[in-house]
């Protein structure tokens, strides 16, 4: 049987493999190579060693976007998970209309980032116009605007995962805790939350990577505005996250493409580091159980 299957390589594996090479493998390695080059198009690439990376680490707008992203991610991960956890907790208590609430909280998740950005732009501008401001007039507005938008979008998704987690906690654990005389808050802290640890890990890392890689919402809501002028005369977009910053470095100016590609590689390394940390935590938990 095995031998026979091997002959079917052409039908079973080859189409996907070819597409995978075109859509991922080749662009990925070419991307790494180009991060060491000076280029405007792929054909005029000249090898320049690490100079792109050195420039990337001196690029103030890139560093600014990095810290902006870090701050955003921390606030976002904490808020989304707290909201989603408690909404899921409430919805699994057997209240009426739980299904309607679940729908309401989940549907924003299906709307694309660009459209979400414009929906919230109208809302925020409608509120801020009363104070003579707009969403792009102050970086603080942009920051919290993005946070509110992301909570609105992502809380429902995480809620679904938490609900599945709550439902998989065996009921007799609660019963045993009650018989032992545990109070409600003791049950939550000593039974529910430890049993929910796998869901909490999953949701934390999902929100972490999602917020870290955020692009569409950022582009549509503020586009990175407002700007300030750095010491060397370049303008720094105050509410720009890393993905958007890399995109702009790349496409706004044909001369900085090598730097943009190097920044993309740095971005990639950070994301991989986050994912490896997740893998470590997931594995460790599996060993314990």
């Amino acid at each position, binding site marked *: *049987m*095995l031998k*026979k299957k091997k002959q*079917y*390589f052409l039908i*079973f*594996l080859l*189409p*996907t*493999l070819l*597409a*995978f090479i*075109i*859509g*991922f493998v080749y*662009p*990925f390695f*070419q*991307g790494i190579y*180009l991060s060491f080059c000076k280029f405007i198009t*792929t054909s005029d690439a000249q090898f320049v060693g690490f100079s792109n990376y050195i420039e990337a680490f001196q690029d103030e707008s890139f560093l600014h976007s990095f810290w902006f992203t870090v701050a955003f991610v921390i606030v976002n991960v904490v808020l989304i998970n707290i909201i989603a956890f408690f*909404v899921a907790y409430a919805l699994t*208590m*057997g*209240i009426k209309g739980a299904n*309607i*609430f*679940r729908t*309401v*909280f*989940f*549907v924003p998740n*299906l*709307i*694309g*980032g*660009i*459209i979400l950005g*414009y*929906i919230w732009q*109208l*809302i925020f*501008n409608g509120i801020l116009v009363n104070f003579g401001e707009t969403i792009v007039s102050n970086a603080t507005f942009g920051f919290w605007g993005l946070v509110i938008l992301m909570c*609105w979008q992502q809380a429902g998704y995480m809620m679904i*995962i938490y609900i599945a987690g709550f439902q998989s906690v065996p*009921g007799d654990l609660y019963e045993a805790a009650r018989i032992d005389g545990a109070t409600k808050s003791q049950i939550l802290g000593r039974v529910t939350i430890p049993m929910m640890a796998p869901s909490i890990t*999953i949701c934390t890392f*999902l929100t972490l990577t999602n917020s870290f*890689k955020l*692009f*569409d919402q950022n*582009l549509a809501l503020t586009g990175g505005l407002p700007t300030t002028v750095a010491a060397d005369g370049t303008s720094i977009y105050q509410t720009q996250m890393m*993905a958007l910053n*890399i*995109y702009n470095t*790349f496409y706004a100016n044909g001369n900085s493409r090598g730097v*943009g590609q190097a920044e*993309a590689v740095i*971005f*990639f390394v950070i994301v991989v580091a986050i994912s490896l940390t997740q893998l470590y935590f997931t594995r460790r938990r599996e060993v314990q159980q």
Partner: protein
Amino acid sequence: MDRKNKNTPGKIFLTVFLSVVSVVYVMPIIIILINSFKSKTAISASPFSFPNADSFYGFKNYIEGMTFGNFPFWISVACSLFITVGGVFLILFCTSMSAWYISRVNSVFCKIVYYFCVFSMVVPFQMVMYTLSKTADTLKLNTPWGILIVYLGFGAGLAIFMFTGFVKSIPIEIEEAAGIDGAGPLRTFFGVVLPIMKPTFISVGILETMWIWNDYLLPYLVLDIKKFRTIPIHIQYLNGSYGQTDIGAIMALIVLSIIPIVIFYFACQKHIIEGVVAGAVKG
């Protein structure tokens, strides 16, 4: 489980509280809906008021939205539909076969392919955005047909990962029995394995649909924008590049692009929830 069935005051309070939160939660969408029937000046002057006799615009915004700019909206809708449906079917068809091959043949080569696929799920799009769009351009994949191949390649990671995980749980004896009965690999796969894989098909299909339908940057960089646009690209263009943006038309188009999503949700609610949970556990 008396936790579930008692109607305590706490629970009633919670229901009322969640109802209020829900109303606030859907407000943004309601506001967009209301604004889509108002005149442009009324939208920017008072976005939170109901339309009155002066500012009520009827379906004018919708008509304008459909024809605004030099690119008709229905072509974008058609492109989005075609790319999403085509891309998801191509991904499901090709990757399910590959995943089965990978986990059954299980050679060194297969393992390398598999680990590369898992790896590709982690890589952020910015890493390959330029090189991928160049490659697609060189190979003339900048049409709605060609982009399907790009989606198959870039979306293969998650699909192969989920399918392989599932195939490993199928007892191989079933396939061996089919083999003894004289079925070749093709018959075995389509007749025996495929029906068993149905739940994973639905989960992967839902996840890939949500991704492709809302994707902005990949089609923006790969497609020939003068000829083909998807809905997110269309809306971004209306807002971004024409100096004088018609905010009424944009409201109408936002409403029009949310409608298919809501229909999709209510049509496959149960599967979406399951898909999200399955994807989370494995991702």
